[in-house]
């Protein structure tokens, strides 16, 4: 069983790479460039230079978190597509904290922001969990709709009361800059930040809880057969809301981290779809923490390569959705690949 699973996982990684590679090669050829040379350059840059590698790692961080934000609810049978909205709300609440308490020392600020990011995203997701627990609406639909509402909330504030009036500010509306104490620390002379540590710790904790603890077993039971779980006395409602809260909180941390570590201020629409990418990663990884790490890396590499190759010039960013659709399609269609038994 394990052997077959490993083969299946490797194959999925391979498929993802193949799809992206083919699309990029096509794009390059159309632009009159040599795909092979371009790929060699990209690979040597990414794996040959520290800067290249660290950039990929940095881009992984939000993906790790949003993927976990999907994997966790999937254990109890929930489909959380609201990572996008949850990360925005985490960023929103964190920004509120910065604006309201601008003069906290770093030692206090960082944990405070972590708390706010978690609560912001968590509360946003818990609402959807509540509706689902009551049997009113499926969480997939709720979180999907709420994904569209969250960025509008951000826009409202960033264009309104939080708008930066600093001289020399860019033409795009954004919030005031975060004070240095509110910026997540970076490591290794790169842009890799504290978020990486948080993400890896959370993934490890997730693995431990699911495999070893009583709560993990209960969650698996609820996900595996909610009717039986109910009759065994498991309280499904609280688990649904609780799990959604934690998942949303994790996605909220991704938003907070992007804003605090990377940009240093809140901008409207800062997420290029991390929430949906996380959804994709989690589904392709089958919800397994270790595979989430490797899949996130591959996807981060693909996006990094995309911008390096300047393929995306002249192509609307939304085109990346096509790639994502193809990858999701492959996962859903579960094709019978040679040598892999279903």
């Amino acid at each position, binding site marked *: 069983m394990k052997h077959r699973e490993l083969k299946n996982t490797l194959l999925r990684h391979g498929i993802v790479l193949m799809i992206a590679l083919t699309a990029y090669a096509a794009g390059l050829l159309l632009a009159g460039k040599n795909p092979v040379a371009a790929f060699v350059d990209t690979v040597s840059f990414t794996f040959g230079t520290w800067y290249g590698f660290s950039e990929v790692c940095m881009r992984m961080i939000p993906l790790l978190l949003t993927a976990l934000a999907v994997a966790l609810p999937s254990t109890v049978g929930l489909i959380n597509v609201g990572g996008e909205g949850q990360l925005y709300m985490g960023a929103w609440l964190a920004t509120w904290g910065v604006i309201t308490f601008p003069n906290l020392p770093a030692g206090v600020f960082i944990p405070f922001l972590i708390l706010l990011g978690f609560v912001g995203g968590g509360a946003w997701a818990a609402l959807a969990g509540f509706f*689902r627990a009551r049997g*009113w*609406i499926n969480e997939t*639909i709720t979180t*999907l709709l709420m994904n569209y509402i969250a960025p509008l909330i951000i826009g409202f504030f960033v264009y309104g009361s939080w708008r930066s009036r600093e001289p020399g500010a860019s033409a795009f509306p954004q919030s005031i800059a975060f004070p240095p104490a509110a910026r997540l620390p970076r490591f290794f002379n790169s842009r890799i930040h504290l978020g990486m540590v948080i993400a890896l710790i959370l993934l490890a904790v997730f693995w431990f809880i699911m495999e070893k603890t009583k709560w993990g077993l209960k969650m698996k039971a609820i996900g595996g057969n909610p009717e039986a779980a109910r009759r065994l006395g498991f309280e499904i409602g609280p688990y649904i809301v609780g799990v959604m809260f934690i998942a949303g909180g994790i996605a909220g941390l991704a938003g907070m981290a992007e804003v605090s570590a990377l940009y240093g201020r809140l901008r409207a629409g800062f997420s290029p779809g991390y929430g949906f990418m996380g959804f994709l990663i989690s589904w392709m990884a089958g919800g397994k923490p270790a595979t989430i790490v490797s899949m996130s890396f591959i996807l981060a590499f693909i996006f990094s390569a995309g911008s390096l190759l300047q393929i995306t010039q002249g192509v*609307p960013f939304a085109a*990346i*959705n096509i790639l994502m659709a193809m990858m999701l*399609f492959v996962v859903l269609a579960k094709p019978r690949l040679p040598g892999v038994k279903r």
Partner: protein
Amino acid sequence: MNWQFFGDLLSGTIMYGVPLLYMTLGAVIEQRAGMVNLGLEGIMLAGASTGFAMSVAAGNPWIGIGMAALAGALLNLIYAYLVVNRKASQLASGMTLMFLGSGISAVIGRPYVGAGIAGLARYQLPGLALVPWVTRTMFSYDLLVYLAVPSALFVWWLLFRTRYGLSLRAVGENPSAAFAAGRRIDLLKYSASIMCGLLGGIAGAHLSIALARTWTEGMTGGRGYIALALVIFSKWHPLKSIFGALLFGGAVTLQLQLQAKGAGISPFLLNMIPYVLTLAVLLIWSGARKYAAPGALGRIYSGED
């Protein structure tokens, strides 16, 4: 309040409501066959951009509309394939469609962003010549608008007065009973998806060709989700959808009018309306939904897939 205001309100209601109605009819057909499609937004986007691009390229808006319908149908075939043949999760398959539609529409529409066209020819209903000036602005619409209500009637007739519609509804109510009666479930589901795709493509095309007369990325702004709400609001009945589409169209138009008059509501808050409205309908009507929904759908809406 003058005639102008009401005239604008009426035409806004109709122009906003008609694409909504087409999409909702498509969704009603598909849901009556037991499939919930979260990718309607993607279908509308694909229709809007394909329709606009083809209209410009071919110089004929009706070619654009035809191609848009085709694009919608092809896109929805992917959904149907995943759900029917691969037995994939309906909700996740809808997401695939959403991604695909949004991505493809952005790519196809890129060269045409901001371009303008003349749109569809508008006609007046004969016999409605009241005050000439009033008639010109208030009662002059294109062919697709006039065909909207007849389309709803056709869908009603198809679903409730034909052998095909009976079989389709049976599939959505109780697939095993339909199967026992010898119905080809797969074929029926595919046919429902194709029709939904056609209608959705037309809906999107009307938006870009007749209403906005341009293309902008993501211009459907959540109408695909409003259609989901409308299906529930009209209890999966094509004729009640007319009422729902007009109601929603009117509500949003009213808000836009108020905003244009400087009522001071932030555009961000206004843009939230479709989504909040959809959520509200889903919440409020969850009780009615359990009773009135086609049998095979209930689980998908409130629980497992």
